[in-house]
Every structure is written in C-alpha cells, then in structure tokens.
C-alpha cells in the first residue's frame, strides 16, 4: 500500500517523467487549488479590487488547464505503450507461427512416411518433439487471444450451435487422452435449444475448462459435466475431484498469468492465461462465469450463456 504512494518510483517504472506522472500532477493540482483559494481570499480582503481578483482567477485557471494537459499527455503515453505492447505480441506471435508450422508439418511427414521403418525409440523422440512443438503452438495461440482481447478485437462470427453436441464431441476427443491419466467423464446433458455464439469461442471456453478439470486430478479422476436450461440461459457445470483452489488464491484465479501455488506442485506446465481468456470470451458473449472450490476436494466451474433463437 505504501509502495503505491511512492508515485515517483511508480511512474519511473512505467517510463514516465515526473511531469507526465498523473498521480503526481493530481496532487500538484490539489495544492494549487487550495493555495489559490487562500491567496485569492487574502488578496480580496486587502485590495478589494475586483479586476485584480478576476485576473488572479484567470491566471490560476490557466495554470490548472496546463497541468490538466500534462495529465492527459501522461495517460496518452501509457495508452500508446499498451497499444504497442499488444501489437508487438500480435506480430511476434504471427511470426512464430510460420517456423512452428514448418516443424509440425515436417515432423508429420517424417512420422507418416517412415512409420514402419523407424525404430521405436526414435519414434518416441519424435513424439517428444511433436508434443513440445504443440505446446509452443498452444502458447502462441493463447498470446494471440490475449492481444486480441486487449485490443478489443475478438471478431466474433455468430453461429447457431448445439452445446450438447459440442460437449459430446470434445469429451470424446479428451477421453483418448484422459484414459491414460485415469480420468472418467460423466455427462448429464439436457437437450437445449441452439445458442448463438462464435464456434471458435465456445470451443476455447470448453477446452480451457475441461483441460483444467483433467489436468489437476489426482489418482482417480472423475469429471462431471452438466448442461441445464435455467430460464433463458444455458448453464454448463464442469465438476472435478482434483486438487482444488486454496481460499487465498480464489480471488485471483481469473487474472492474467496467475497460477496457484498448489497447482504448481502438481503441474508446472501452463501459462496462467486459460481462465483469463475463458472469462473474456464468456463476458464478450454476454454470459457469466464462476466457480466453487474446496482445496483437496475439487472444483466446479460453471458458465451461463443466453439462449437466443
């Protein structure tokens, strides 16, 4: 808290000089206002000449406007820096995608063409490269989503989509992977009317939530997915019996780059971007998202989206 009051240090951190520092300038404005009121009062009593008082007021107003201008410039500089950062992330991510695609497709080619002649050990090595390549692609995709969210360019194309169908397909895809790590899915899906949503967006929402549910289970994992109609909302709940989220971390769980200490013990992989992206997409789709969690028992994440037909 005291750290925040040291605005000179704060502003230096953001690359702003003292005369561009909004926190400092607001205090200056405050001082000038108080001082000018007092001096105007004092002068008015002494000279009682309307012209002089008016002149002083005009002068002070001028000074305040000048400082206001500096404040605006400071904010502009911050906004510009933020914009440049988002653009930088977007450009770098796009540039990274080309070599990553090259690696991916070359591996594809080797593994498909020489499947029968490759020694088992060598195939495993190639699989390791493939998995790591995919991790980098996922990270780049996350960064691109973030930069788009920050620039307010999610570019949704709305389509009528059956949530039931999407969930069934995704869990089918996941059970291939989750079988290996001992996770079972149990589905309880009501037949809902179609909802109007961006197909890529709903895919990301569900993938991120199911990913988390599957990733942080301990020995015998059970992931329950429930889909119900609540008034004119579609409500989806994803319940796991994983490690859960400690009380002190629950407030921060949707923040960018946040990762709970207790999940770091189980899984170091992950960027802390998934839930931030998920929440942004749900919000942009005029929905709500939330969770209940008990450390050591598991978590239930839910989201609600409007049904529009």
């Amino acid at each position, binding site marked *: 808290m005291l750290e925040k009051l040291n605005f000179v240090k704060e502003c230096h951190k953001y690359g702003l000089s003292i005369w561009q520092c909004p926190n400092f300038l607001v205090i200056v404005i405050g001082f000038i206002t108080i001082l000018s009121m007092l001096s105007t009062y004092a002068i008015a009593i002494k000279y009682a000449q309307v012209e002089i008082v008016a002149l002083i007021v005009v002068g002070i107003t001028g000074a305040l406007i000048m400082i206001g201008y500096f404040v605006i410039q400071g904010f502009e500089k911050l906004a510009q820096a933020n914009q440049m950062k988002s653009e930088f992330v*977007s450009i770098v991510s*796009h540039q990274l*995608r*080309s070599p*990553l*695609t*090259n690696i*991916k*497709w*070359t591996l*594809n*080619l080797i593994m*498909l*063409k020489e499947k029968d002649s490759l020694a088992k050990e060598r195939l495993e090595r190639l699989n390791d490269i493939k998995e790591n390549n995919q991790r980098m*692609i996922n990270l*780049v*995709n996350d960064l*691109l989503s973030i*930069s*788009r969210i920050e620039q307010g*360019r999610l*570019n949704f*194309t709305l389509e009528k989509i059956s949530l039931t169908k999407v969930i069934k397909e995704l869990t089918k895809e996941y059970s291939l992977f989750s079988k290996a790590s001992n996770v079972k899915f149990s589905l309880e899906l009501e037949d809902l009317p179609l909802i109007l949503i961006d197909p890529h967006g709903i895919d990301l929402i569900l993938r991120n939530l199911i990913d988390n549910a599957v990733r942080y289970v301990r020995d015998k994992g059970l992931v329950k997915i429930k889909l119900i109609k609540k008034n004119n909302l579609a409500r989806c709940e994803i319940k796991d019996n994983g490690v859960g989220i400690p009380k002190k971390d629950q407030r921060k769980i949707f923040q960018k780059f946040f990762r709970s200490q207790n999940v770091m013990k189980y899984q170091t992989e992950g960027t802390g971007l998934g839930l931030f992206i998920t929440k942004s997409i749900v919000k942009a789709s005029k929905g709500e998202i939330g969770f209940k969690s008990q450390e050591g028992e598991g978590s239930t994440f839910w989201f609600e989206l409007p049904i529009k037909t």
Partner: protein
Amino acid sequence: MKTILFIEDEPTLQKTISQFLEGKGYKIKSALDGEIGLSVAKKIKPDLILLDLILPKKDGFEVLKEIKKDENIKHIPVIVLTNLEGNADIGEIFSFGAAAYLIKANYDLEEVVKKIEETLNK
C-alpha cells in the same frame, strides 16, 4: 489425377505439403507470390487452390477477389491456408468466396488433406 495449385511464399512449407500431397496422388503446382499464383491459376485451371494470405507482390485477399471475378476460373474452390488470424478482413474471407479457412499451425497435414478431399467432393 486432380491438380492443386499452392500459392505460398515459404519454400519449406511448399516442399512438405507438395511431397505429402503427391504421396496422396495429387498433382501439385507451386507459386511463390500472388502475381505468379494468379497467372498460373488462369493458365492451368487447377481443380483446387490453396492460398496463403501474406504474399509478396499481390496479397491473398487480392488474389482471391480476382479469381472470383474471372469467369474462367471463378468456379475453382479456394482453401485459404494461412497463419493470419484476428485481422479485420478475415471475417470477410467467406464473402470474398473462400471455400474454407484453415490456420496452418492448428492443422496436421492429414487434417489439411481431409479438408481438401471434403472440398473437392462437394
């Protein structure tokens, strides 16, 4: 044998996809920039075009629009195969006449071929 024209400026991607598609029984023609791509398309009239968006000389959006304007080749399905995403123009790619839009990094070679087969059989 079906002919596919692949308009892509990156030689390694050209090579891998060409090798793979040839193995699947397709004939591949390559073009390394938008202008050449367009003129090759007009000359050989392929069965399908794979088109990148970020291209030298003439970008993919221009190439797509010009293909769809030309009476002789506008029937040829165009699959946009790119790493560009989130750009404002992407939303209009289907109204320009693209048959599909695939983000390279998110697709395996086999999935790309599946999409090609699906599009050719439509």
